């Protein structure tokens, strides 16, 4: 077709102009690709930090934390009467170990399970939670601290009485009696165990993606499967295939999970039903993971749960995100604040440059365009010609821009830029010492700093959008140039001298 032949001739033979216009658009496109790729990289980095905090699909966690304050009125006494009662019944004196009944010289090997930080509640609550509108899925989990005591009871008279209330926060309540036992040949070990609903792995406290070695829970099968965290596996010298004993039952270690940052870091994960049976916490859970029907429903669902479920605390993914700080967060807020502005400015500048170059080209070709009109080209045909050329430059600009952008992204990745993310524990954020309420920290929310490598990525969608933007830029400049050309009078063919 002649139309294409003419456009190609113009683009090919006026190479300088073509390249200049295409480059103008390309720089804009490349910036969009790079800024977007970088912000995707930052999003991914943040997701990497946040993902272990909850299951992948979890929008919010519902629990009943003990409300502890540090203003002198904290501790057991600060709890409501019903909470005190529940604690007494769950934990009992001596953290559940009846030391008074131990006979000196006798052998002991007991596991005692206690609730950790959160008050437990009946798993039937899951049913009512799932009935709240816009709730997509619910899964329960139970995290307990297992105190394992083994050895021979020393010949020391141990008396332990329940401490009365009124003591300060962190050390209040039932102090574990381990200090008194250190002198003997009894050894105590405290491990945190979480029971997860393996039928809903995306909502679980340990997800299949966290498994670094071995495998995830089988949905049916062996009830005595355990997944251990990397840290615990190292300290307890465990590997896939090892056996561990919990509550007198032998578990097979089937997988090792990566240590999450800021999440509920348990040493051992087992199936929820198994843990409930072994620990005696039959039908009890302490956390409900809730997935909303869509991201926009999260706030409303969280509000409904808080209202309906007295004493509950709902932590949403955005609450978790707000706990992350450090250079990663700074970079993210910078990219969200400045990134969009930079992209818009780059695009406007690119389109402006392309339009000005096209206008300059039209002005320079006044006689040519006048001639086309004088020999019978219609306005539409002239506009189509100018637009077609600009479109060609837009396509070229898009391709060059994507190449530049992808190259820039590769360069960013090659730099191996790492950013720091610090995750604060929610208790610390709340100003309390809840993690230490029971004198233990094993199952507390871990806090700490991690370095995350930024992996900027250019998705196919992003590249398609970028090329689309360049073509759009070409069309805009073509339309501007074309309209100018359409207004040129055919008489210009006889008048303008170059």
């Amino acid at each position, binding site marked *: 077709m002649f139309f294409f032949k003419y456009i190609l001739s113009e683009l090919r033979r006026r190479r300088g102009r073509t390249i200049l216009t295409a480059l103008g658009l390309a720089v804009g496109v490349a910036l969009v690709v790079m800024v977007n790729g970088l912000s995707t990289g930052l999003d991914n980095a943040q997701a990497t930090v946040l993902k272990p905090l909850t299951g992948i699909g979890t929008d919010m966690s519902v629990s009943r934390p003990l409300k502890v304050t540090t203003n002198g009125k904290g501790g057991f006494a600060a709890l409501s009467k019903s909470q005190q009662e529940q604690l007494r019944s769950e934990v009992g004196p001596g953290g559940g170990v009846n030391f008074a009944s131990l006979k000196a010289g006798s052998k002991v090997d007991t596991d005692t399970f206690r609730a950790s930080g959160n008050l437990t509640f009946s798993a039937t609550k899951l049913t009512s939670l799932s009935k709240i509108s816009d709730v997509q899925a619910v899964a329960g989990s139970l995290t307990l601290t297992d105190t394992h005591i083994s050895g021979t009871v020393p010949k020391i008279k141990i008396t332990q009485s329940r401490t009365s209330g009124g003591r300060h926060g962190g050390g209040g309540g039932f102090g574990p009696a381990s200090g008194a036992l250190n002198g003997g040949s009894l050894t105590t070990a405290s491990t945190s165990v979480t029971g997860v609903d393996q039928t809903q792995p995306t909502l679980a406290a340990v997800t299949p993606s966290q498994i670094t070695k071995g495998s995830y829970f089988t949905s049916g099968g062996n009830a005595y499967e355990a997944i251990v965290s990397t840290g615990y596996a190292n300290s307890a010298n465990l590997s896939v295939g090892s056996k561990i004993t919990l509550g007198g039952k032998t578990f097979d270690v089937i997988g090792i999970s990566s240590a999450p940052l800021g999440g509920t870091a348990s040493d051992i994960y087992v199936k929820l039903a198994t843990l409930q049976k072994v620990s005696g916490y039959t039908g009890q859970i302490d956390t409900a993971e809730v997935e909303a029907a869509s991201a926009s429903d999260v706030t409303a669902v969280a509000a409904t749960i808080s209202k309906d479920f007295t004493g509950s605390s709902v932590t949403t993914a955005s609450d978790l995100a707000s706990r992350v700080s450090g250079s990663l967060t700074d970079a993210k807020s910078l990219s969200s604040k400045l990134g969009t502005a930079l992209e818009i400015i780059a695009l406007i500048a690119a389109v402006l440059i392309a339009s000005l170059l096209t206008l300059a080209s039209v002005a320079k070709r006044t006689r040519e365009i006048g001639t*086309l009109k004088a020999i019978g080209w*219609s306005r539409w045909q002239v506009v189509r010609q100018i637009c077609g050329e600009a479109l060609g430059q837009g396509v070229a600009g898009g391709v060059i821009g994507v190449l530049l952008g992808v190259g820039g992204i590769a360069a960013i990745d090659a730099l191996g830029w790492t950013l720091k993310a610090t995750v604060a524990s929610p208790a610390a954020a709340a100003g309390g010492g809840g993690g230490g309420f029971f004198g233990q920290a094993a199952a507390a929310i871990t806090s700490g700093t991690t370095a995350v490598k930024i992996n900027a990525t250019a998705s196919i969608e992003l590249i398609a959008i970028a090329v689309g933007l360049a073509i759009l830029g070409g069309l805009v400049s073509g339309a501007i140039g074309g309209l100018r050309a359409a207004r040129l*009078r055919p*008489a210009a063919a006889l008048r303008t001298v*170059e």
Partner: protein
Amino acid sequence: MPSTTLEPLPTPTASDLAEGTATLESIYGLSGVTKTYGSGATAVCALDSIDLTVSAGEFLAIVGASGSGKTTLLQLLGALDRPTTGRIELLGRDLTSLGERELTRLRRDTIGFVFQQFNLIPTLSAADNVEVAIATRHESSAQRAERVAELLGSVGLAHRAQHLPSQLSGGEQQRVAIARALANRPAVLLADEPTGNLDTASGSEILELLERLVAEGNQTIVLITHEPRIAEAAQRTISLKDGRILSDTQPGPG
């Protein structure tokens, strides 16, 4: 100069003429045509009540001093511009009553234009420059290529078809431009100083080509020239001065 054979070009078709009241003989009929540029104190009267008739097969030369209104007149004849007042009939149709779209069609189908600066598109080959004029016709590219080859052959440039304008001499460029102007078999060929940018030899070539078009194809030509030998070659010469026709030397009978 290479000898070339020229195929006879057809005169306006019956259907072209059927719309208007003009006879086969009348191409243009101008009455009281005035063209004023600008307004108020700076107004320039480029043409002042021009009456003119051009018949089919006529070879008409327009002469006159610079600024006398020659180009303005040619623009009006070429439907590139509209007169301020007066009436211009082309093949019996009143140009002043036509819309922009119809004028565009008329320029494409009825008028051929040749320019002093050749006005070829610098990025297109000689063949493509000719094709520009018929690009908008609903013909197959094979049909168009055939027509382009025929036209380039008729101006003696078949062997230069793939050359860019910058690779052609001035005379060759102007012959390509003439081939382009003839592509749609126009009823009239308009030329503004077609030899103005050429040396004497090239100018003679162009003149011979134009003369052949008139002699062999009965082509109607209106051209502007400063060169006496070209004016002499024309059958009729009108002389402009300050926008008025100073003299009109009609061809003598026989």
